[in-house]
Structure formats: C-alpha cells, structure tokens
C-alpha cells in the first residue's frame, strides 16, 4: 500500500455554512468537525458507536460522527451542537438541560441534545416512552436519565407554548 494519503474534495454544509475541504478518505466526521473545523462541541466518547456522545444531525437525521467518514458526507447538511443557539440565546432544549439540571459532567450532553433535536423535529410532542426510545442510543453516566427526560419535556412545553417546532 502506498503511503500517499487518498483524499477527496468534500463539499458540504456545516451549521449553515457552505464548505469545500480536501479531506483524507479515512478521516472520520468527528475528527473533521473537531480537528479541521474546530467545532469541539461534538465529543468523542467510546469512539465506537456505543455511547452516542458524538451524535450530530446529517440531513436532519441523528448519526454517530465517529462511525461516519467525512468524505461520505458529500452535499450533506451537517448540524452540530454549535448550531442550536440563535444570536447567543440558547435553544429550548439547551435551556431545558440547564434549567432541569440535565447536565452534570456535560460530556454526553451535546450528543444527547442533538439526538433529542432530531427526535423533536420528527415528533414535536413525544410521550415519555418515546423520549426514552429516542435517546436510547445515548449513554449518560452521571445523571441517571430522569433529569435528562425532564429537560426534554421542558423543551417540549416551551416550544409547545410558543406554537412552533424545535
């Protein structure tokens, strides 16, 4: 095998900004976001698709950035935790995690919020069971999930009272 790195010209949108980057074929999306673009909100936990910390939205669908090659995101729209706050105001989900103490060490939080964001876009009014189901692929080792579910319910109430989707 040659030592020369295989590369691809990647055209995609990250948090609403169009990008053209030359990426190594074997570069993971998580490393692309963190190392190449500097969006370190996306965390790498288990690095093997088990913990969900690296969850980002690709074309609106939650996916593990540690299992996706950056070069396969051609023409895709990628959203990370950094995309949620608008004009320095936290999103309803982010406020929920803050208000309801859904965060302790905070490492799982970006993935947790992105998975919840994907779920709420598809189903703006999930039941508690549906919230548990929607966050099943995200592990938290601190809070024990009760506070996390309350955080999501806080966001649902807040968005519901405003009458708009997440």
């Amino acid at each position: 095998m040659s030592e020369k790195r295989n590369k691809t010209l990647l055209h995609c949108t990250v948090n609403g900004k169009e990008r053209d980057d030359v990426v190594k074929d074997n570069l993971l999306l998580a490393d692309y976001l963190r190392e190449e673009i500097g969006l370190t909100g996306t965390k790498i936990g288990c690095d093997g698709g088990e913990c969900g910390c690296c969850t980002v939205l690709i074309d609106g669908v939650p996916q593990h950035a540690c299992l996706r090659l950056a070069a396969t995101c051609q023409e895709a729209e990628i959203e990370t935790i950094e995309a949620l706050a608008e004009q320095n105001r936290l999103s309803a989900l982010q406020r929920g995690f803050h208000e309801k103490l859904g965060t302790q060490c905070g490492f799982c939080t970006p993935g947790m919020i992105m998975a919840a964001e994907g779920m709420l876009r598809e189903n703006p009014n999930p039941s508690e069971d549906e919230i548990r189901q929607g966050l099943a692929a995200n592990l938290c080792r601190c809070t024990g999930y009760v506070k996390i579910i309350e955080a999501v319910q806080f966001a649902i109430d807040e968005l519901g009272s405003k009458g708009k989707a997440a």
Partner: protein
Amino acid sequence: MEYMPNFQLHRPESAAEAVKLHSENTAALYVAGGTDMIVNVRRGIEQPENLIDLSAVTELKAITEDKEGLHIGAGVTLKEVSGNEHIVSNYQAVAEAAAAVAGITHQQYGTLGGNLCLDTRCLFYNQSEWWRQSNDYCLKARGETCHVASGGKRCFAAFSGDVAPSLLVYQAEVDLVGPEGTRRIPLAEMYQNDGLDHLTLKPGELLTVIHLPKALAGCPSRYEKARIRGSIDYPLAGAAVRLEMADGNVKDLAIALTGVNPYPQIVKGTDDYAGDALDEESLDKLRDNVRKQAKPMKTTTVAPWYRRRVIGALARRLTAELAG
C-alpha cells in the same frame, strides 16, 4: 481505537458500478451504514485498501410491492423497515426485529442489507488490535487457536444480526449481484454454519434486494431478543416465530434463531406440530427442541447455559402468545 488504515474511498451511484469497483480494486470492502463495519475497520479486523461506500446507491433504498410480494432494497434503513406500514401489518416480526437492532440512532442509518451481512461476533474477536495481538489473535483472524474451544478446528463466533431470523420464517429470498451477474437464492442459503465464513456470497457479490413472499403476508409472527442492555445491544439470543392457526390447531409453524450459532438457524422439526393444539405439554416439548438445536458457546460475557435457557423460553413464549 485510533487505528485507521489508509484506504481509498469509492462512492458508486449504482449497484453495477459498486460491483465493478469491487472487482477492479484489491482488498476491497463494501460498507453500507457502517455501524459495525467502521468499528471493525478501526479495530484492524478488516484492513481494506479500497472501501466501497454504498450510501450513494439510491436504487437500493426503495421498498416496492407487486403481486409477488414485497421487495426491500438492501440499502433501506432499519428505521424505515420498522416504520413501514406494510411490513408492520403483514410481516410483524420483521418490523419488530428491525426496531430491536442496537439503538435508535444506529437504526436511522444502519441498513437492512448490512444487518443481514453482519460479521459473526466473539468475545475474542471484537476487540482492539493490541488486545487481540496480546492474546495471539484467534482462529477467526490471523491466529491459530480458538480461545472459545481450545483445540477446536472451527470457529464458533455467533451470528448476531437481529433481522435475519424474522426474514427466514417468512421464507425470504435475496438478490445477489456479482461480477458474473445476478442470482436469486433463498436467504437461508446465504448462510452456512461456519463462524469463520458464515456467508456463502462469492467474492465481490453484493446483496441488493430482499424479497418477502405475498403468500405469507399477514401470517402472524413475533421477534424477541435477550440482551445485556435494553437500550442498545447485540442479541445474546433472539427468536422469530411465525405461527398460523386453524380451528385452534397449528397450521403452519416456523421458528428461527439468532445469537446462538454461527449462522441464523431455522429450527428443525416444527412441521411435526401441524394439527397440534399447542397445550402446555407440547409447548414444553417445543422449548426443549429449540434448546437442543441452539449451540451457544462462550462467545460473549454471558454463559452459554443461560443463553440456551433463554432461547428456549423466548421461542416458547412467543409461540404461546401467537397461539392466543
């Protein structure tokens, strides 16, 4: 898990192009969702020089229906399978199995084809490169000893896909596209009882479509699995049961298992129950029959005796529920 080989990525837009790329390149590997494959690549289990990413092959992402039955593209995601109304109402076990794979995030980009072609798994195989190296590797990859059965000459790594048993009880068939053309075979023939080489696919062959027959549409079925973590995990043991009753007696019974053998296995002897009323005694007999045919080995952290008990209990419970 920092290891990543320096492969070249290919993104074909058709199945034919994918097969052509596979035959033209050395050490080529197909990857669909990648929920399992990328992990294996990063652990050095797979060492591709060319990775053929199937995510841009749109022709494999359709579910169509005709007079023959339902045709599911291999690239359809597991979430689409579990949420498809036709599958939910006519092939219930298939929808239940797709919803039981890993966690919801994996189901949103993991594909049906990927789940069917999932590599077999073992405690001594699905480990990091240094872990396996310090253990002198194993029979399945680069080593000469089986750590599960010392002195064993064959590999017992367990097939751990959830959806295959449900498709097997519906007698699904599959299309395989290879360098020599397309062939259609029963899904059961895509597997063999060998943990080292459990797929009968020829080199470069690609699973493209899964066919579910119309004749069995609507026949009641269930799938259930035992796993360590309820939210996300491979099956320790999983059973799919399809049961059609007539006048309170069994008309047609099919059971298939996963997680307890190197291949998804159809339970033998279920034809003997035709005409049976399925009382407690015959359900116990059925349970014991399933336990005898399941051959779990020490391929996970959970003891084989437990998995054998569980698989019997699952098959019995599902059959009893379906019998009503």
